[in-house]
């Protein structure tokens, strides 16, 4: 058995374990928060930790330095690795996963072999213990909760401000290669509202529709060439409470 194999490195085992779990979770396509929670460390810290472990054997740097390098080398793994990756394949989820896992495994292997030859590997631990009692943790958690509450309050303020801006969008665009077919829509950005949509072409009203839209609801329709090609211009006018509200006008090219 080689000396490298004889040295226990629970930290490196954990890093590689996280990469393996990431691979499994990604293959299972769990989605949602679980996937984010499991895979985020694989981007933000794990490859960097392994690289830092390879470059700085235990006890050669302070724990705070290791935390800093773990994050910054993770940036390097994604940035430099991603640049190299994109020359071969488009960096999609699978490619990222493979890249970051490979970096983690490779750097961990180097770290393990360096620990085997490093003269200072058996240094006793000098790290401090956590403070006594739960008070400090409770206070920090409470502070985090209050900060989270502040963000929620601010988000509520944004939504309240936006709720004061009630409006609707009217649009119409020719369908590419559609031979005069036009797609049109109304998007209600406020509270529940009723509209009347008038479609005119060649100076005559072709259609008049009553629309009742709930908040954020979109209405869409396709107008065929028989509607749009009656004149040189197609006009869609939206009325709100019988008053002109929005209008769009398309120049229809002769076929």
């Amino acid at each position, binding site marked *: 058995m080689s000396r490298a194999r004889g040295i226990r490195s629970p930290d490196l085992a954990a890093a590689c374990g996280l990469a393996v779990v990431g691979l499994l979770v990604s293959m299972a396509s769990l989605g949602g928060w679980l996937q*984010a929670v499991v895979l*985020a460390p694989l*981007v933000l810290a794990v490859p960097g930790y392994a690289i830092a472990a390879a*470059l*700085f*054997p235990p*006890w*050669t*740097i*302070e724990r*705070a*330095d290791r935390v*800093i*390098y773990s*994050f910054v080398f993770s*940036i390097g793994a*994604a*940035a430099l690795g*991603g*640049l190299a990756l*994109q020359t071969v394949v*488009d*960096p*999609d989820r699978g490619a*990222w*996963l493979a890249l*970051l896992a490979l970096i983690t495994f490779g750097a961990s292997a180097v770290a393990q072999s*360096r620990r085997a030859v490093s003269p200072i590997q058996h240094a*006793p631990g000098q790290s*401090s*213990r*956590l*403070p006594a009692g739960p*008070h*400090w943790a*409770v206070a*920090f958690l409470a*502070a985090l909760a*209050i900060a989270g*509450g*502040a*963000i929620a*309050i*601010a988000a509520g*303020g944004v*939504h*309240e*401000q*936006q709720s004061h801006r009630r*409006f609707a*969008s009217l*649009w119409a665009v020719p369908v*590419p290669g559609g031979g005069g077919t036009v*797609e049109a829509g109304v*998007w209600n950005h406020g509270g529940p509202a009723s509209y009347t949509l008038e479609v005119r072409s060649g100076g005559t009203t072709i259609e008049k529709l009553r629309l009742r839209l709930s908040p954020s609801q979109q209405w869409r329709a396709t107008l065929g060439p028989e509607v749009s090609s009656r004149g040189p211009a197609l006009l869609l006018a939206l009325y709100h409470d019988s008053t002109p*509200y929005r209008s*769009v*006008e398309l*120049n229809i*090219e002769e076929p």
Partner: protein
Amino acid sequence: MSSLDATARTAPRTQPGSRRPRRPPRLSLGLAPLLALVAATGLLMVAFGNNAARLDLREAQPLFWGGLIVVYAPIVLRLFSVSASREERMALAVMLGGALYVVKVLYEPTGFTLHDELATWRQTSDLILSGQPLSENPIVTGYAGFPGLELFTAALSQLGDLRIFLSGTIVIGLARLTLMAALFLFLERAAGSSRAAGIGVALYACNPSFLYFDSQFGYESLALVIAAALLLATLRWSDPTGAEPGWNAAGLVVAMGLLSATLAVTHHMTSYAMAGFLGLWALTIAVGDARRSRRAGGGPSGPWPAVARDPWVYGPGLPAFLLALAAGGWFVLEASHVTTAELGGVFKEAVESIIHLITGDSGSKTLFQSAGQTNTMAARILGVASIVPLLIMIPLGLLRTWRGKDAPNPLWRALAIIALFYPLTMLLRFTQAGTETSQRASEFVFLGIAFVGGLLLDELPWRGDRARRLRLGLALTALTTVIFLGGFIVGESPVTRQPGSFLVGGETRAITPQGVAAAQFAAERLPAGSRVLVDRPNSTLVSSYGHLDRVSGSIEGISVSRVFTSERFDAIDQRVISNDAIDYIVVDRRLTRETPAGGFYFESTEPGANSYEEPLGVASLRKFNHVQGLSRVFDNGAIAIYDTSGLRSK
């Protein structure tokens, strides 16, 4: 040698056969948990203040400014204290950075609104959709050549299945926390005092870019933490006192190489500034060496005896070389075009305005005033009051690092020289174009200020009874808080310090749901990459969420903004649209309500920029309704989008 190095290197010398090791000491966090609660309360005040500002309520400003003081001042008071432990100081430094980052998040917690953030969003989105990290960016040219942040964020978004907004917020938040820890360690090791480091970090937070600009989802925000990590590695590499020959040299060199390469592909300015600083540091060692050799041929002495080693190899010269090599190589291979396009323009304008200012060819810019935005008298006083103490501190710091106890220390001297740039950056603020350069320089210059400030204030006579020390601490906390608030005033326009109601040309204040709706329509219904004429705030929306490409500048000597400002649509407008291949025109009808708060409607070089006395004429925007060949394809009241295909085919 710092206590940290001592911890790291004395550990191995412990005798393996010694008796049961003593239990490691407990971390002493002191008042940090309590101060975390106080800072969180300050964040609540800022949140309520911003909500009040959105509704134009009077309590908006007292709550906001009060919240900033509640976040900043108590932590700083504790950092001044002589009784706090090293762990507590480090925790406070990280907390301060984190809490101030949340202040930025509270500005708009539901999506990106800042110009550079939307540019980064576009670059990241393009990367995810096309797999190309180096595609052109229509909002900020430079992003096309420096994709470090976008690659990191895209990896998180794609693996974690997260929105780009959430991924970006997490990445920059972690970068901020890590930056504060790295800065603390660097300052601590440089000054040899955790107290000086804590005070230094508090002073660094006073830089005018710290609160918003350096917290935004932009490449510079991420580059700063990489640069700070490189500083830590360099300090270790250059520390002559501790290492036995060959001690982990390979690991350190590879680390510095990796950090240099990462920095080079992340941000141009930070790479160049760092390479310059490391070169300066090596130079101060070399000059000191040469002087010492000339005098008596004496051997190395003092606390930095390492000068016996070659600074260009075993000092900061090596990382300076590695970084210059990485940045230069990246510039030549990939980023020359975008870098010269972005930085060249900024520096050219700054230099030209200074020359014009000196020769009297153009009027200067009044401090704390730009275009239609004016600060209140109180804000002006606070702004000036924040500059004066720093101007006094810098020469004292220079004297201390050159002549004082423990001098000469080459790193100290290099940092003091960096601090000397502060007055120059303030001079730049007397010109319109120089303001941007000054703003961009502040995060680098403040590294020097943080060091000399931390060193000087740590060395003040803190003797006497507790009450006297408390009085001194309170006075210095008040002074530092003034510098912090004043720095924010200097760096941020009055209209964008807090959110609020719609404001023409008001950057984030001009980002509205109507603009977002138009951008969403563009993304769903218009061909991606279509060329579009649009005003500045809406350009960031349609070029990011809308995936269109904004057209700016001029063609055949005609500013493209003329299409908007001419009262009648004429042959020149037609020529601009046809020859510049404009596909769509986005018209924000609200532009006719008032003159632009930011000084311009479309771009800073448009005719009339920063000198508008009347808003854009209604006829200028209405004319598009009557142009034959233009199709109005979108209308939400505030914003209309016109398709020019019928016009161009004529």
